[in-house]
């Protein structure tokens, strides 16, 4: 008992120092993020109708032709993703239409399967390239990325670097303004390819973008649970989209 008072500080110090630790990320799930960005000056209530392409865009630099084919097989990742984006916008109160001319916006689903040792930063719409190449229905590109040289419609918060998760695939949903897309198509028809820099070309307007990491597994197969959770999180982050 006499020596108790000398022992107590050491016990205290031992307890305190042993408690100073922080859990590191342990699983893929720990680093999977769902992110949304939007044009804060845009009134989403102005949109009513949307159109979806006939398949999901794919951007990859490592999938084999067979893997790509399985993504586009009937009922594959492409079809399931299209269904998910369609249901999401219908659930928000928008009306699906069949033609581009009737649509206020295009609901664009893109699957990014990109291997890179480095962090990849990208801005909305950057993979579309120049108009001559075009974004089309069911278009995909299976080689290395190419870079847009087009002036993008820039509203992206510069403080938020957005990374492409390379190990599990990232799903990108976007609301591409249909009018801006129609203008680009018209412009394409009247301009040679490639256009001159001074041609002052129209640009795409993307007013909302969601990224869901961990959307698919390494081989491009669909991870239903994560996809649905991620899309749900993206919609919860975006209450301004509700009609």
């Amino acid at each position, binding site marked *: 008992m006499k020596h108790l008072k000398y022992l107590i500080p050491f016990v205290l110090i031992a307890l305190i120092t042993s408690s100073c630790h922080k859990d590191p*990320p342990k699983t893929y799930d720990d680093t999977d993020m769902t992110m949304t960005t939007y044009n804060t000056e845009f009134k989403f209530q102005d949109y009513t109708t949307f159109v979806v392409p006939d398949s999901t865009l794919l951007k990859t630099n490592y999938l084999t032709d067979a893997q790509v084919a399985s993504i586009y097989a009937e009922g594959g990742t492409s079809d399931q993703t299209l269904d998910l984006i369609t249901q999401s916008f219908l659930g928000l109160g928008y009306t699906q239409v069949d033609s581009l001319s009737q649509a206020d916006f295009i609901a664009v689903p893109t699957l990014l399967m990109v291997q890179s040792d480095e962090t990849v930063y990208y801005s909305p719409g950057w993979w579309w390239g120049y108009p001559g190449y075009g974004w089309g229905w069911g278009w995909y590109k299976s080689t290395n990325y190419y870079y847009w040289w087009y002036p993008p419609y820039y509203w992206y918060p510069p403080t938020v670097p957005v990374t492409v998760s390379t190990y599990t695939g990232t799903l990108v949903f976007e609301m591409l303004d249909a009018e801006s897309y129609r203008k680009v198509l018209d412009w394409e028809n009247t301009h040679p390819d490639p256009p001159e820099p001074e041609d002052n070309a129209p640009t795409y307007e993307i007013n909302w973008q969601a990224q869901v990491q961990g959307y698919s597994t390494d081989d491009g197969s669909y991870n239903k649970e994560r996809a649905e959770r991620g899309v749900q999180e993206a919609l919860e982050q*975006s209450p301004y989209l509700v009609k």
Partner: protein
Amino acid sequence: MVFKRPWSNLHTWLNNVQIMIIMMKKTILISLIVLASLGTAFSQSIWTLSMEPSTPLGDMRNFIEKSTYRGFSASASWFVSERITVGLNIQWTGFYQKDERYTWTFDGAAITATAWKEFYMWPLYANARYYFLDEDEARLLPYAGLNMGVAYIDQNAKVGTYEFQDKSWKFALAPEVGTRLPMGIERSWGFNFLIRYQMAFYNKNEIDLLQFLNYSIGVYWKIYPRGERY
């Protein structure tokens, strides 16, 4: 739970606050030297080491709700009269919480991911305590006190692969109630129990008033001026 504007802009009055804090730190330092030199020469002093679990309150719960047992304090106080002590107190408290899916919202963007959130506070206080009973008679020595000073605050979070950190010095205040339990025949040491209500004027990251409750369990020793004890 939504956490907005992690990188809040510095307010225009921040410079003034910083100057005030520097002056306060100097005042505390000078007080410490004066107290240490005068106090040990002329009055009894009480030196305390404590473990201090804490529970977040108010706005702070928007960031971290979980209580922590990671905290300690070291304090020294001197009797300036029979029942009043003045002293100094240095503390450390560390809060931590992991959220499985945490949404971080800021202008034009939001992120939902696993979040590791931390909050550290190092208050440096000058304090005064009033004892309700006489030092040499009662079995328990209850008191009420007030701490005032500055606090170094480190708030940080890792959300998915993003991180932010916000460090600052803030004015802090902490009223407390507690009791000493003297031990031994000479009552020269004992245990100290107290509850302290911590407040810091934070005004950042959606936390206006930073508040939490300390539950302190400690040990103290009395040090006597030469010649006074016997």
